[in-house]
C-alpha cells in the first residue's frame, strides 16, 4: 500500500488535471503533458507508477448504475460476530455481485451493523436474492441484517482531491 509521501508536487498536479477525466483525444497523456508543461513520457511513467502503488485504483469508464438498468442499488448491512467478521467479510467481498464491502463501526442503541456490502439488481427481487445469498454465507455469525435502498441521488460529484494544502496554513 502506498503512502502520501510517495506523491510529489508534479504527481499532485497530474491528479488535479485528470480526476475529472481524461481528454478524449488520440494521445490523452500527451495532451495532459502539454497542458502541464511536462514530457509525455514523464506523465505516462507517473500514471503507471501511481497505478502500481494503488493511488489510482483503475483507469476506465465509470457507468451510472441507473442508466444501465440497475434500479435496485441496495446497501446491505449486517451485524456479524466480531471474531469472525474479517474472514466472512473477505468471502462476502468476493461474491461477484458485491461491488463494495467494508467493516464500519457500530453505534450502540442506534446502529448495530458492522459489515456493509453494496449489491446492484435490476429490480428489488434481484437485490433481495443477492442479500439472501450473503445472509446464507454469513450463517449463524450474523445476528441481523437489512437492505437500505437508495431512493434518490441527492448529490454525486465524485471525489475532488489532490490539492496540496497551501504552505503555512498549518496541519
Amino acid at each position, binding site marked *: 500500500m502506498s503512502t502520501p509521501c510517495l506523491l510529489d508536487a508534479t504527481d499532485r498536479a497530474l491528479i488535479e488535471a485528470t480526476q475529472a477525466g481524461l481528454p478524449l483525444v488520440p*494521445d*490523452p497523456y500527451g495532451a495532459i503533458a502539454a497542458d502541464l508543461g511536462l514530457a509525455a513520457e514523464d506523465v505516462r511513467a507517473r500514471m503507471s507508477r501511481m497505478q502500481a502503488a494503488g493511488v489510482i485504483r483503475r483507469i476506465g469508464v465509470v457507468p451510472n448504475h441507473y*442508466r444501465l438498468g440497475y434500479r435496485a442499488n441496495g446497501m446491505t448491512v449486517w451485524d456479524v460476530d466480531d471474531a469472525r467478521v474479517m474472514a466472512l*467479510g473477505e468471502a*462476502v467481498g468476493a461474491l461477484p455481485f458485491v461491488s463494495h464491502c467494508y467493516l464500519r463501526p457500530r453505534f450502540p442503541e*442506534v446502529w448495530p451493523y458492522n459489515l456493509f456490502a453494496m449489491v446492484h439488481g435490476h429490480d428489488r427481487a434481484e437485490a433481495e436474492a443477492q442479500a439472501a445469498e450473503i445472509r446464507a454465507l454469513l450463517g449463524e455469525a450474523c445476528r441481523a441484517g437489512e437492505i437500505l435502498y437508495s431512493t434518490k441521488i441527492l448529490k454525486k460529484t465524485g471525489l475532488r*482531491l489532490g490539492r496540496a494544502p497551501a504552505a503555512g496554513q498549518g496541519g
Partner: protein
Amino acid sequence: MTDHLDATDRAVINALQGGFPVSERPFAEAAAPLGLTEQQLIDRIADLRARGVLTRFGPLFKPEALGGEAVLCAMTVPADRFDAVAEQVNAWPEVAHNYARDHTLNMWFVVAADSPRRCREVCAEISELTGLTVLPMPKLHEFHLDLRLTA
C-alpha cells in the same frame, strides 16, 4: 431514463471499466480487441458521456492514498425538513455523494477531504448547521472494491 444501448455500447462499457492502457495511443490499443477504430472508440465514449450513461472516463483515485479520507455519514432527517437539509449538506464541496435511503437513518453522504481532520470538521459543521446528529462511519477495513457492472 430508458436508454438504448447497442451492442457496441455494451461491449465498450463491459470491457473498459478498468485496464485502459497508459501508452501513446491508448484508444487505438483499447479499440482493437473491440473491433473498433481509435476514432470510433473516442466518439463512442464521448457519446456515452454526453448521454449520462457514463458519469466519468479516466483514472479513479483512492482518496486515502492521496493523504485524504472519505467518510460515510448517516443522519436521521425529519421528513418535513428533508429537502432543505439536503440542500444545506450538499453545499459543502467536501460532500461528494449524498443519497436518500429508506430507513430511519434516511440521509447517507460521503465526506471526502484532504485530511482526516478536515473530515471531522465538516461533520461537526454539518451537525451544527442542521442541528442534527451526524453518525460518522469510517471504513475500518475494505474487503473489496471492484465495481464491474454488466451493461
